[in-house]
Each structure stands twice: as structure tokens, then as C-alpha cells.
């Protein structure tokens, strides 16, 4: 499959398709459906220092061509992920991207330092769409200064390249991207979910117990494409594109916008085979477009 392989900082991938963080657990469930080595990489669920239960349920709500989630970063905590999840994943020859989260800078640093030393973690994905408790709950990812400070500190301790996962809930996504690039980010992941809400008209309360949730799925694809189109022209680090990808054609659209590989999130819930299906389908689409290697398409809409 020499038409699909991709070399990005820390990531040597046989194809540019990975499941998105939080939509694939730590791989065990999908391993029952297909061989995980078919994937280009795997972005595992966000790791925090402590075990987190997350938010009360309901945690998901459906929207038109999309869904809201407020899982609340439930995860077994750093030690357990290192000892169990990552060790289990070692059986597969596939690079792992460790998504890390926290509510204060120190937490991020601790997780980044330790998880980046795991044998199969080839990159860190810094999830900055989390509330910073020390700054009164303002999200790390909505302030360029806070985001770049965090990036710098995580870079200092990480043994592997760091991809910063940008929040789309900002006025100026380019400003955010440039700030974290200057702070040393090796790549960007975009986009995380849009902040949204649904209200149950009978109960007169938000459907999600948490009130707000993150909007994902096909509904947000046009926003993702727009932001990647803008950012890819302003930075020189590669972009992992995501937001509503569910077909090989979607992948091409993200590449043309400026992504260098693509993560698939919500679509895994609709079709557990979506990632291998896309990977198998890509050569057909490349043929139709007369393209030898998918990397030729990166930024093709503005180049």
C-alpha cells in the first residue's frame, strides 16, 4: 500500500487513517471486529493522572447528522493505562497517539512525561479543550497564551512529538494554531468538538446531565474543513484532520483542505468497520482522481 503510507513527526504510518481519541476506547472492543494493524495509528482515550468516573448520564444525545457527548474524560488513570491498556496494545504493530488531558498544568506535565516513555506511544495529543481550574475554569484551548504555555511545558517533558488538539470554539483558530506552533508543537489535531446543547422539551432540561456537550459527526465537517483550510496555510507543522469523517471521499476533502492524515471519531459508533472500510476504499478514489500517492493531495485546495 505504498500509495497511502505517511511519515509524520513520531508517526510512521502504513496509511493516514486513525480512530479519533475517545471514540475507540483503548482498542479492545474494535479488535473484536478487525485486526488493529490495519490502522495507520490509534489515538487512545484521554489519559488523566487520576482515575476519573466522568459525568453523570445521560452522556450522549443525538442531533441532526451529529451527536453531543459529555463523557467527562472517564478513564482508568495514568498508572492503569500504562500497566494495562498500553501493554495490551503492544501486541499490535501500530503507533499509538496518547491523548492527554487535565484540569491543571501540573497534571498534564505528569501524564505527558510518563506516558511518552511507554514503548508504543509514538506521539502525544495534547487535549486543550479542558477547563483550567486554576484559571476559573476557562478552557486551556481558548486562550493562545495559556495554550502555548502549556504546549511549551509539555514539550519540555515529552519524549515523543507533541500534537496539540485545537478546540474549534474560538474566534480565531489561526491565532491559536500559530501560538502553539511557536511554542514548539510538532503537529496539530483539529478539530475537537463544537460546544452544543439539546433540551428535552418534556423535561424542560438539557438532555445531557452535564448540560453542555461536544458536537461531533458529519454536521461539523464544514467547520473542520474551513479551519484546516485556514490553519494549514498559516503553519508549517502537519495537521491530523477530523470532524465528521465517514467515507474515503471525506478523507480526500480533508487532505485537500490541508490535513496530512485523518482521524475518524463518531463514525465508529455507526459502523464499527468504518476505518478499515475507508482504508480499503481509498485506492479506488485515488484512481478516480488520478493520484498516485495520497500525500500529493495535502493542501491541494489552496496550493
Amino acid at each position, binding site marked *: 500500500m505504498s500509495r497511502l503510507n505517511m511519515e509524520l513527526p513520531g508517526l510512521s504510518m502504513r496509511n493516514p487513517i486513525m480512530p479519533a481519541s*475517545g*471514540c475507540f476506547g483503548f482498542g479492545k472492543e474494535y479488535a473484536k471486529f478487525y485486526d488493529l494493524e490495519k490502522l495507520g495509528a490509534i489515538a487512545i482515550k484521554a489519559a488523566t493522572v487520576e482515575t*476519573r468516573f466522568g459525568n453523570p*448520564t*445521560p452522556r450522549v444525545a*443525538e442531533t441532526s447528522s451529529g451527536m453531543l457527548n459529555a*463523557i467527562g474524560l472517564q478513564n482508568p488513570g495514568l498508572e492503569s493505562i500504562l500497566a494495562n491498556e498500553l501493554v495490551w496494545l503492544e501486541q499490535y504493530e501500530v503507533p499509538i497517539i496518547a491523548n492527554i488531558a487535565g484540569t491543571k498544568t501540573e497534571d498534564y506535565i505528569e501524564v505527558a512525561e510518563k506516558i511518552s516513555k511507554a514503548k508504543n506511544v509514538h506521539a502525544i495529543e495534547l487535549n486543550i479543550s479542558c477547563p483550567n481550574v486554576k484559571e476559573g475554569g476557562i478552557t486551556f484551548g481558548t486562550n493562545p497564551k495559556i495554550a502555548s504555555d502549556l504546549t511549551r511545558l509539555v514539550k519540555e517533558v515529552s519524549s515523543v512529538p507533541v500534537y496539540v488538539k485545537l478546540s474549534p470554539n474560538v474566534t480565531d483558530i489561526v491565532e491559536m494554531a500559530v501560538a502553539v506552533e511557536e511554542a514548539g508543537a510538532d503537529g496539530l489535531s483539529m478539530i475537537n468538538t463544537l460546544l452544543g446543547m439539546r433540551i428535552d422539551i418534556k423535561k424542560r432540561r438539557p438532555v445531557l446531565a452535564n448540560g453542555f456537550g461536544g458536537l461531533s459527526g458529519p454536521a461539523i465537517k464544514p467547520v473542520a474543513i474551513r479551519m484546516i483550510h485556514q490553519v494549514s496555510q498559516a503553519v508549517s507543522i502537519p495537521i491530523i484532520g477530523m470532524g465528521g469523517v465517514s467515507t474515503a471521499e471525506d478523507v480526500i476533502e480533508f487532505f485537500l483542505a490541508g490535513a496530512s492524515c485523518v482521524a475518524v471519531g463518531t463514525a465508529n459508533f455507526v459502523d464499527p468497520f468504518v476505518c478499515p472500510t475507508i482504508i480499503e476504499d481509498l485506492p479506488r478514489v485515488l484512481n478516480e482522481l488520478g493520484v498516485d500517492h495520497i500525500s500529493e493531495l495535502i493542501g491541494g485546495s489552496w496550493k
Partner: protein
Amino acid sequence: MILENMEICQQQPIASNVYELVLKGQELVNLASQGQFLHVKVSEGTDPLLRRPISIAKIDQDKGELTVIYRAGGRGTNMLALKQKGEVVSVLGPLGNGFSLEETSKGAIALLIGGGIGVPPLYELSLQLVKRGVKVVHVLGFAGSSDVFYEEKFMELGETYIATMDGSHGEKGTVIEIIDNKQLLFDTIYSCGPTPMLKAIETAFPDKKGFLSLEERMGCGIGACFACVCHVKDDPTKTAYKKICTDGPVFAIGEVEL
């Protein structure tokens, strides 16, 4: 747990807004057992986006058919109700653990308590229990007479009491009231229905062995997204959890927080 396109061999209304749907497939049927559920895609496109979890009501491995019973209420189930014989739906399943049969020995009495759209999974369960020589007693609660379904089918398998909130069919009152009034005797409980009903059962029969099938909004249905978790009872750390889609939907009474 596989993904299979299943053909609709029959679809018919059996109560007010309640449909009985028979699906024919290949492998999936052979994997299915009582109390498990299917995750059904009701449209080709992205609207609605997510699959719908629906319990298996009957398994016919000889014919290769599964029966589900669902209430058409929201966008997805309403679309499912419009599907015709011959159409194909994508089904992920069988999912979840299902009801274990081992806990009730031959000759013992199992009390099956169903509430509304929680009744369907009890049907295959009852069939299986009867097959094992267990005596089954059914107490099924519905809102009103137009909501009742499968009464005769359950009667064929064992004693059956219907409770309606308005008394328009069977006895008036809750399932718990019926069990009390009739002074029903039983060894084990199996129940599926609204959470308040399940809670009432836990409270009413604290010493009985039994199993409850829970519901929660789901994303993946296979344990990957953590949408459907619940707390474990008596967990001081408050971080222990069970996933309803894979650890459940059936839990032993007292196992998880309702």
C-alpha cells in the same frame, strides 16, 4: 457480536405505537441469547445518525429469525416503523450479556416482571426458562389497555398477570402491588422496565436473588465510548463503573446503582 444486514420478514403493529418486527439473517441469530440486544441502524444516511438499541424478544435459530418489539416514539423508531417487508436494516449484535439461566434451578419459580417496553426481552427468557423446567410467573405492567401486547403468548408459558395504571385491562395498579395482592411466591426475579419500577423491586424484595435489565442512552453499544456507564453499589471510591452495553444490560439485583 457481528455486523449483519438483516431482512425484514414481517413488521406489524401489536399495540398502540408498538411494533413487532421479525428480522432474518445469517450468523447473528446463532449467536443470540435471551436478554441481549441489537443496535439497529434505521436509515442509510446521517439522519438519524446513531443506531437504536432494541432488545431481542424471540430467537428462532431454525428459521434464522429474530423478533424485536419496539415502541415508535422518536425520530428513529418512527422511521423504523415505516420500513416494509423485504427491506434490509443494518444490525450490530447480539450485544450485552443477557439473562443468565443458571440461577434458577429446575422446578423453582421465576418471577418475570416487565414494564411497558421492557416486556419484550422477558419473552425469550421465559421460553428458555420453561425449556429448562423452571416454573415461570409473569407480571407485566402497561399504561393502559391499548398498550398491552403478548398477553396470550406469556399465558401459554405460565401464570400471567397484567397491571395497568388506569385499570383498563387486568388489575389496576403497579406490578409491585399485584405481586403483593396476589401474594405471589417465587425463588428468583427477572425484570426489565423503567428505572422507577426496578428501584421499587429492589426495595420490595431486598433478600431475593434476581436480575434487572437496564437502559441508558448509548453511543457505540460495544463498550468503547463510555456513554452508558453506571456506578457500582457500595463503592467508596465512586470511580468503579459498569458499562450497560457490555457488562449489562442485565445486572444482579444490588450490583449497580439504579
